[in-house]
């Protein structure tokens, strides 16, 4: 017979980051434990509020199934003596189950016959197992900072005040965290501060909602908040800006959400909208509102946890705090504007970027130092970009960024705009921290892109120069993210930048003595690992990257174009031919040593097939160079594909490692030329095609 199971752990207010994850983890662990015990069950529902971790599982089996357990005893050969009487080993095995040796069965295996016993295991009642399973699930929760309270020795996420475990209509006896298990939950801390008896598990959410002023289901509460905000905003011809993270956080802070509309002094609208949003979101956990034209309005929505006897008092209280916070922000903004970004630079000279890599001013100067090799290729004015580089970190010492670190760059742009810097400089400063993560957009403007690339190149070069490259999962400087950002910007914006040149220059600018070539090579390896990951995401075949790294090309966009052409080319029959030819060439050449002949002597070419190959290589060489310089790699591949019949014939008929040393050396020289020809485009020997 199956019955519903309800579990609720009542706690003091949980940390917001724990509310939903802990409830989900509890459900998942307990369900796994039930499955391990083969206790059948149906759907489950997770409840999560600031004061409760809850779980309802429908139709849980009342017992584990009956089971047959096979125990293996001694081998038959050791179980009976020569007379056929049981040995002590056999008797001992039988005694374990309180039976006689003759009641045991035998089993034949590859290793011989063994005594076995089939033990019938009776079903275990779920209700006797539940407490243990629940304890096990609770103890296994991923609590970031477990705490103790009172004089207890156990720990949990927050002190526990009640425990409800109801299986059908039966209370599971026992204690959890010293709290006697009951069928009673509690209502809202202020609106219904009383016990509520739950008679059936399925009534839980309904009772809490109807009597307790608690919306126990997380998603339902989240939706309710959103609906209430939308309705309230609409009633005032406004639109609420729903920040998903904030909505989740607020859902974790309330059991009975009530949306209240507050106002602030419109004069604060002269502050940058990002500042207002940050202030309201972070400090007050309130939502901002816009009009139909998406302009920020002097209003906010606060989600209270109470149907107040006098909502005006709650609104007035929130307005007062918002006013104080915005006054602070306005004060900071005004203070910051008293100094120009250039004047702020002297403060940057006192902030260490990284030990042994100098101050943030030093870093800014190094970024500027990279501009001569970046700006012209992006058709930007070098001096303007150098100036942007010098100013880009100046906002880090501003009051505002000190208060809201995530406004770095954004505030700098506002200050640059305020002091009438070039528009290119403003956008460069604003965008130069982008992209912040895998899903973040790259800078929209070229000046932002140039500055972002230079900043990240310098960070990578500097940290690698200190020998602090990421290892395993440890990447405290977020260098992987930085490298992926650089590659994405170069490829998506189709920039002709050369990573080797950028890193090489950046390394020479670092204030530490290093083995330049070794670190440069480490940086490039690191770059290609990240590029490999990007290619995998873009459905490129694994291993294809080596085809282009082997050519010595270090321009990511150019590499990307070659790879795209190769990917298209791969299914063709000629691809296989070129790949196997290039592999053979490499094998033959790898075995050679000593003074290698580079030039082919036409007079030593004997066979038609080698003459033809030599002619074709000669004919194709310049054409291929031209096509590759135009980055017309599809056409280049078509040209190379034309080699197929000649190549096939050559390897079919011509013996390269022949007896005659002069002929042999000449043929090897021919292969070297062929190799060089291939490498103008790619190393086909790495092309991941099956022979």
């Amino acid at each position, binding site marked *: 017979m199956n019955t519903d199971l309800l579990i609720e752990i009542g706690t003091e*207010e949980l940390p*917001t980051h724990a509310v939903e994850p802990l409830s989900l983890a509890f459900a998942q662990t307990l369900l796994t434990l039930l499955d391990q015990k083969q206790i059948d069950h149906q759907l489950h529902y997770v409840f999560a509020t600031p004061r409760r971790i809850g779980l309802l599982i429908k139709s849980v089996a009342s017992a584990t199934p009956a089971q047959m357990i096979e125990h293996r005893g001694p081998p038959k050969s050791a179980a009976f003596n020569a007379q056929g009487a049981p040995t002590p080993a056999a008797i001992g095995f039988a005694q374990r189950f309180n039976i006689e040796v003759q009641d045991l069965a035998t089993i034949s295996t590859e290793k011989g016959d063994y005594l076995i016993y089939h033990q019938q295991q009776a079903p275990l009642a779920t209700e006797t197992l539940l407490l243990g399973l629940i304890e096990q699930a609770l103890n296994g929760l991923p609590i970031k900072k477990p705490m*103790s*309270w009172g004089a207890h020795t156990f720990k949990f996420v927050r002190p526990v005040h009640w425990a409800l475990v109801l299986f059908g209509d039966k209370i599971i006896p026992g204690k959890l965290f010293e709290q006697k298990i009951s069928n009673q939950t509690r209502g809202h801390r*202020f609106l219904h501060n009383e016990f509520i008896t739950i008679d059936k598990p399925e009534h839980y959410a309904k009772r809490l909602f109807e009597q307790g002023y608690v919306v126990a289901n997380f998603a339902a509460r989240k939706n309710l908040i959103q609906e209430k905000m939308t309705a309230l905003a609409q009633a005032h011809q406004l639109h609420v800006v729903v920040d998903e993270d904030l909505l989740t956080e607020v859902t974790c802070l309330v059991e009975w959400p009530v949306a209240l509309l507050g106002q602030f002094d419109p004069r604060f609208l002269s502050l940058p909208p990002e500042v207002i949003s940050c202030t309201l979101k972070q400090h007050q956990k*309130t939502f901002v509102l816009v009009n139909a034209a998406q302009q920020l309005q002097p209003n906010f929505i606060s989600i209270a*946890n109470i149907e*107040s*006897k006098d909502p005006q008092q709650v609104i007035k*209280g929130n307005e007062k705090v918002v006013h104080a916070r915005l006054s602070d922000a306005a004060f900071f903004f005004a203070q910051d504007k008293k100094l120009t970004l250039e004047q702020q630079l002297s403060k940057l000279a006192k902030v260490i970027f990284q030990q042994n890599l100098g101050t943030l001013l030093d870093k800014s100067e190094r970024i500027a130092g990279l501009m001569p090799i970046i700006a012209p290729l992006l058709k930007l004015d070098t001096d303007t970009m150098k100036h942007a580089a010098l100013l880009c970190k100046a906002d880090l010492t501003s009051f505002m960024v000190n208060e809201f670190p995530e406004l770095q760059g954004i505030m700098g742009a506002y200050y640059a705009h305020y002091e009438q810097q070039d528009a290119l400089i403003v956008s460069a400063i604003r965008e130069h921290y982008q992209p912040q993560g895998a899903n973040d957009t790259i800078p929209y403007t070229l000046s932002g892109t140039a500055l972002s690339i230079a900043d990240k190149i310098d960070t990578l070069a500097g940290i690698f120069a200190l020998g602090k490259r990421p290892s395993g999962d440890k990447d405290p400087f977020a260098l992987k993210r930085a490298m992926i950002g650089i590659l994405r910007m170069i490829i998506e914006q189709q920039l002709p930048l050369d990573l080797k040149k950028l890193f090489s220059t950046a390394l020479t600018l670092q204030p530490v003595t290093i083995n330049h070539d070794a670190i440069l090579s480490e940086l490039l390896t690191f770059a290609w690992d990240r590029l490999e990951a990007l290619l995998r995401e873009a459905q490129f075949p694994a291993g294809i990257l080596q085809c282009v790294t082997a050519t010595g090309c270090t321009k990511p966009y150019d590499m990307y174009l070659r790879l795209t052409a190769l990917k298209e080319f791969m299914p063709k029959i000629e691809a296989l031919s070129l790949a196997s030819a290039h592999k053979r060439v490499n094998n033959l050449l790898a075995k050679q040593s000593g003074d290698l002949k580079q030039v082919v002597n036409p007079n030593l070419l004997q066979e038609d097939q080698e003459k033809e190959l030599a002619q074709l290589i000669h004919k194709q060489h310049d054409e291929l160079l031209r096509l590759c310089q135009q980055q017309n790699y599809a056409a280049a591949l078509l040209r190379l594909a034309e080699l197929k019949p000649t190549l096939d014939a050559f390897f079919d008929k011509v013996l390269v490692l022949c007896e005659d040393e002069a002929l042999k050396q000449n043929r090897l020289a021919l292969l070297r030329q062929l190799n060089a020809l291939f490498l103008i485009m790619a190393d086909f020997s790495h092309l991941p095609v099956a022979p």
Partner: protein
Amino acid sequence: MALYRMDLQTPQTFQDLIFALSHFWAKQGCVILQPYDMEMGAGTFHPASFLRAIGPKPWSCAYPQPCRRPTDGRYGENPNRAQHYYQFQVILKPSPLNIQELYLDSLAAIGIDVKTQDIRFVEDNWESPTLGAWGLGWEVWQNGMEVSQFTYFQQIGGLPCHPITGELTYGLERLAMTLQHVNSLYDIIWAHTPNGPVTYGDLFLHNEQQQSTFNFEKADTTLLFTQFEHFEQTAAKLLEEQLLLPAYEHVLKASHTFNLLDSRHAISVTERQRFLLRVRKLACAIATAYKEQG
């Protein structure tokens, strides 16, 4: 369960607020202490909190404590922030299971109706690098304003706590501003007297102006550095001689000296960490010795 009943006599003045809280917690069995007579950044530095939280002995007390945070000075021009302000501190060891209910009852006792006001417990974990201490808990919000801090100490002076001490810290000015419906802390009525009302500003505005000037502009950094060294050495020496209470007072002096140097921007970011560690090392050594003495 507690009923959060409204007390009929809600405090009208700042001093009434202190009386009401003292009275409430005295009824809960707390020893009502008076402020410690030394500069400190928070009520937690009071030996009745820091030292008494160490070891197994039960202990409950409550006291108002003036706090000094030189960097928070605003020359008396900011309505919410000052370099000298008051906390009301409650220490309950071991923390009773109904500690939140007691706290909410105390709000009722000072005239805060929890069925009208939006009271929230928002996670805020406390850490004091100088005291080698941390705890878990909340800041308590009233209509979006933080009015109290609520902490379960987990570690003090580098030592794990057992039993756990619960600490409640009321921001008296903020509570008074809400209760009295004023927008500046200087407008708080401290007391009604036959000669008329005495405001917080009457008592402390000049102090804020002058102390801010001292903290930010006049404090002699050369002397402060010397004093820091001296307090540190004295604390170490007293610790060796097992004079733990005077040793701890010298840690308090060193800590305040550091705060003054900080407000003079005399300590760079990297040095800052080193100074904090020096204070912390002493605080932890004293805590260990205190525990051993029992």
